[in-house]
């Protein structure tokens, strides 16, 4: 995947916040889902976002990626404030997410799913897709895109499923497909919402390998995950949310020992 490895190359200088969330707040009716949450994610890292059910992790994702407009607070990405922008505008900036329950396009083939994603496709303009001469360029670009799509499918080892309808895939395969699709947009940062949910152990290993490969190429990850082993063994930093706020932030080892975190998890289960 030559093009994906080039894009984020200059972003390797770690230590700088790529994504910064400040005083984020979102309520539904009377329920406060995210309450004054602030955290940041450094370039080139794999950062984990954990917390008991209902801690506001998915809503935070939704607020960052524009699915919801936050009631208060700011989201800054790559030095630019993106609060309240529309999801496509945010994805255009290079911040792309996956969903807790994979949202594949069921009645499209796996290949079509992946082909949909790349940015700036000429043929996405209505007149170009119809007009006789302009369409030639579309077809040329399309051939490149097909090549690139196959490479991505091979990278994720789901190329044998290319012609299957995405709706027929297993839960784990869908998670892979979603990640492959997200990568096709050539983002600089990926927000993965429970990427390992429903993925069997061998596939999970594969997925984690892919994530590390991509990190080496310069990608930044923010991952919501319930599996503590994944978080503790694969993330450089961990953010813990509880009741809509950030409870703790730090290295996995430190988080593991944090009294408040243990309390929150135990408290949540009682």
């Amino acid at each position, binding site marked *: 995947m030559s093009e994906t490895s080039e894009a984020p190359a200059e972003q390797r200088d770690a230590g700088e916040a790529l994504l910064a969330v400040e005083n984020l707040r979102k309520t539904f009716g009377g329920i406060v889902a995210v309450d004054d949450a602030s955290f940041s994610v450094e370039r080139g890292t794999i950062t984990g976002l954990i917390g008991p059910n209902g801690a506001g992790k998915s809503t935070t994702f939704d607020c960052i990626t524009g699915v919801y407009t936050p009631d208060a607070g700011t989201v800054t990405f790559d030095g630019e404030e993106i609060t309240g922008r529309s999801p496509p505008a945010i994805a255009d900036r290079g911040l792309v997410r996956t969903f807790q329950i994979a949202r594949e396009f069921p009645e*499209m*083939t796996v290949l079509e799913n992946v082909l949909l994603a790349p940015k700036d496709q*000429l043929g*996405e303009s209505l007149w170009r*897709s119809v007009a006789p001469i302009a369409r030639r360029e579309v077809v040329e670009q399309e051939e490149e895109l097909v*090549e690139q799509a196959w490479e991505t499918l091979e990278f994720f080892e789901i190329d044998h499923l290319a012609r299957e309808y995405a709706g027929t895939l297993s839960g784990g395969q869908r998670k892979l497909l979603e990640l492959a699709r997200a990568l096709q947009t050539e983002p600089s940062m990926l927000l993965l919402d429970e990427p390992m949910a429903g993925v069997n152990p061998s596939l999970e290993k594969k997925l984690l390998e892919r994530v590390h490969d991509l990190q080496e190429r310069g990608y930044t990850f923010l991952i919501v995950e319930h599996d503590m082993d994944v978080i503790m063994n694969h993330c450089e930093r961990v953010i813990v949310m509880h009741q809509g706020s950030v409870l703790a932030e730090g290295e996995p080892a430190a988080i593991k020992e944090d009294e408040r975190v243990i309390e929150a998890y135990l408290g949540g289960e009682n």
Partner: protein
Amino acid sequence: MSEHGDSRPQWVTDALLIGGALLATYAVFTVFGLVLGLDVNGIVSTLQRVTFFAAVYALLALALNLHWGYTGLFNIGVAGFMAVGVYAMGLLSSAEQGFGLPLWIGVVGGMIAAALVGLLAALPALRLRADYFAIVTLGLSEIIRRALLSSSLREFEIGGQSLGTGGGSGIGFPATEGVVDYVLYAGAERGGDPALLGSLLFPLAETVGIQPSVVRSSVYTALLVVFVIAFYLVLSRIGASPFGRVLKGIREDEVAARSLGKHTNTAKIKVFMLGCALMGLAGMLWQGSRGTVTPSQFMPIVTFYVFVALIVGGSGSNAGSIVGGLVFAAALWEGPPFVRRIIRANMDVSTPTTIYDALLPLADLDVLPLVGYLVGSLDEIRFMIVGIVLVVLMLWRPDGLLGHRKEIAAATDLSRPSRRAGREGVEEGGDP
């Protein structure tokens, strides 16, 4: 269903399918005609009528397929957008009730008007759920129809020019069917000296006993068929393109498409406007062909007819839309009156006024009055059948006869690059 690797392009498969269906329909109606003892003129006229309705329903189903089949926009205001097209054309080109501009300006204007009303509906309504969207579009189409019916718009003035929808009595304008006179008669004067195509067709028709009026209608119907092909080509191109992929993405999961950076709102607005313009055009070609329309030609039932045509064929498939239009026109529209004629010609049936009078003789084992009543109530039965067909399709074949929404949306061959290279004769081991 065309899999890739199938050497036959999609359009060839589609053409064979549609051609086959058309031939079968013609065969059935020719037999009907022979049973009824129709002459050549009668049979040709029948086939022309079937083709005409098949073509107009195919046009509308194709346009609706762009909305519903491709994009998942559940538009049940088709009749309203047709009405906008026809009335805008009428107001532009009618000499008495409009500006009296040339017909082609009227047609272009009608399409633009339909697209603009589509925009008006689309801008705010596109973020609604599918069922709300359906109710809004139905509401809009009824607003349009009632406004056209209203006496307040019967006559009004714009810039000193007196215009009017004519209320319930409708609007008159140059018939779109009149365009065929340009290729049939000298000076485009109907009934004048045959010219161009006319000088070829009229004598030919006369030798087999076909009347000039049937020739004229047939030429217009042929023009409609050309439009069907044009719609098919344009829509297939849209479908097989990255734009079509975005539409499919919207249909399948709009939130996911947006999260991948697809500006779905723009795509939806564009596609909605285009579909509405095509519906307006189809309306002009159909309801405008006689040179006069009234609001009662745009009842919501027309929309449901189009839906039946689309769903019978299989939404998401352009070929399906055309076949659906044909099946609808042949089996549900033109077929039943033929059955009635055949029954009436061959059985001595009276038509009792009520079902009571029809059922009473059953006590004496006389079924003829009941048959007569049912034959006389053919219109009602036809509507019932349309309804039952919809239900049955939803229960057993929600994807339609050619059921699939799965035509691949890509502008090029999708096989693995290595394989494609191999097919082109370049012996290469694959991509690095």
